[in-house]
């Protein structure tokens, strides 16, 4: 009998990522943010590793390049935190400033905090996936040895 788990896990991947994106985008105004978004995306990938195995999970580009993604995220975070310093603002200043007109459509407001949160999302996702991948690599290639 074929298990229903593998197809179900594949079906779950894209909706999970969509929810992760939504969490990222609405983090500025309501519950959400880059950290839960990254953690959720990482968990979605973990499900693929557990159900389909390392090779199948690594078909996705973002999974193969998870570690560099975390690095890019770090650059985004550090950039948005400290670049305002060059313009004479305090670190972590938000653009557009509170007195400037807002940019955005409907509930979506575009501001530099989104970039910061996006960077955070990439860091969390990259780290979670890298750690999972290392574990998968170890259990896949080595015999378990006692202490």
């Amino acid at each position, binding site marked *: 009998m074929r298990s229903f788990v593998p197809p179900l896990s594949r079906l779950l991947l894209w909706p999970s990522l969509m929810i992760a994106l939504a969490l990222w985008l609405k983090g500025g105004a309501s519950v959400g943010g880059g950290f839960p978004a990254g953690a959720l995306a990482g968990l979605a990938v973990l499900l693929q590793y557990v159900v389909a195995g390392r090779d199948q999970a690594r078909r996705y580009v973002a999974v193969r390049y998870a570690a*560099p993604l*975390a*690095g890019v995220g*770090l*650059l985004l975070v*550090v950039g948005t*935190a*400290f670049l305002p*310093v060059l313009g004479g*603002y*305090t*670190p*972590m*200043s*938000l653009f557009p400033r509170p007195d400037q007109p807002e940019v955005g459509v409907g509930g979506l407001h575009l501001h530099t905090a989104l970039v910061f949160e996006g960077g955070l999302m990439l860091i969390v996702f990259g*780290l979670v996936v890298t750690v999972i991948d290392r574990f998968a690599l170890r259990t896949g290639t080595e015999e378990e*040895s006692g*202490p």
Partner: protein
Amino acid sequence: MPLWGPLLLPWVLGAVLAFLDGRRAWVAWLAILGLAGTLVCTAWLLPQAWGAQAPQFVTGDWPVGVGIRLRADQLSIVFALVSTAVLLGTLVYEHVAGGITSRSFPALVVFLGAGLTGVFFTSDAFNFYVFFELAMTAAFALASYGEKPRNLRAAFTFVVVNLMGSTLFLTAVVMLYLTTGTLDMLSIIAWGQAGEPFALVVPGTLLLCAFGVKLGFFPFHFWAPAVYRDAGPTVAALLAGALANIGSYGLLRFGVDVMPQVLAQARPLLEILGAASILYGSVLALSRRDTREVLAYASITQAGLIIAALSLDGREGLCAAVALALAGSVDKTALFLAQDRGGERARRAYSVAAFSTAGVPPTAGFWSKAWLLRAALEQGHTALAGLVVLASALSLLALFRAYQRERWLKEGAALHRGTGAVVYALSLALIAVGLWPEPLLRAGRDAIQGLGTLP
């Protein structure tokens, strides 16, 4: 120098280093230069921190409570300086000792530095947790450095135990917020002065447990011997010398500064925990045959001394706690690095650091212990004073029994010029402070003076 200088430098450098191969010599030197730059930037803040108003800013120019306040008073600066110096020394040691074997080692050490500087400079309870976790994450990755089975075993113990500590800490932060309605430390202080003194007892107890796990005093010490024995010597030096400072700093910051009322209530408990750690660490250090385990138990004694100093009424005990933490940090780094090698130079450096740990003059450890002894006698805690003397004698015995017994003194690669320079610099710093203790005493006194909420 603006306050964000020492925060910016390790962050940017860490982000760049994350993309580079840390096994190359120039990458290691870049990391070393960056840490040295952070040290200089922090030292630059000294005059401002000792000025009328401690340097501070609120992120994004938001009002306090929305934005995060970062603030560097004397306590922050002295801890940041010593911890960064220890990280720098250890990184130089690892590089000149024969090359870094892991791609990410320099980046991780720099991130550990970024996390520690953030922890010391932040004035927001949740932000403290964020930086603390950043430092811990870097330390988790560092703990497995070497990648031998024993290193991985040490890393696993370290990660599991410290994650439990982090959970306790996060719970305490949530409770603090729910009780006081703010996460800003200065606002919590104001709330505590106005509000009910018993309201913060539960988060205070959780914080004591969380920092207890980091600092490793009895009964939260159980991970320390296994981790310090099995992790690589440089990693053990990083964990014992720099990371444990989070524990002592956190206890001072949250106990003395943020919740002095809770600390006053906790004093009898701290006295018992301190005395138990001192006795437990000293006696077990004597019973161990592995040098690193001896050092681990010596560090439990050291943590007990800090806790015992916190349990004393009045400022003198707290000043002694700062001095003990700072001197102990350098002691432990020097000991862990010196016992890695053999030969004449290692012997000398080890002896100096061992004398300092035991509190033999003229070393930094002598002054910090003498301060604690004086404070204890002034307060009439003769039993505690007796314990301090007993702990000194037993530490001396345990550390030199290890010295006598160990093969590493005769065999093993000797300290060459580069590694010897690092270990010598640490030992000489201990002797220099022993001969001219004014900076250490002043650091202790002013750091506590700056907290200002005590009678």
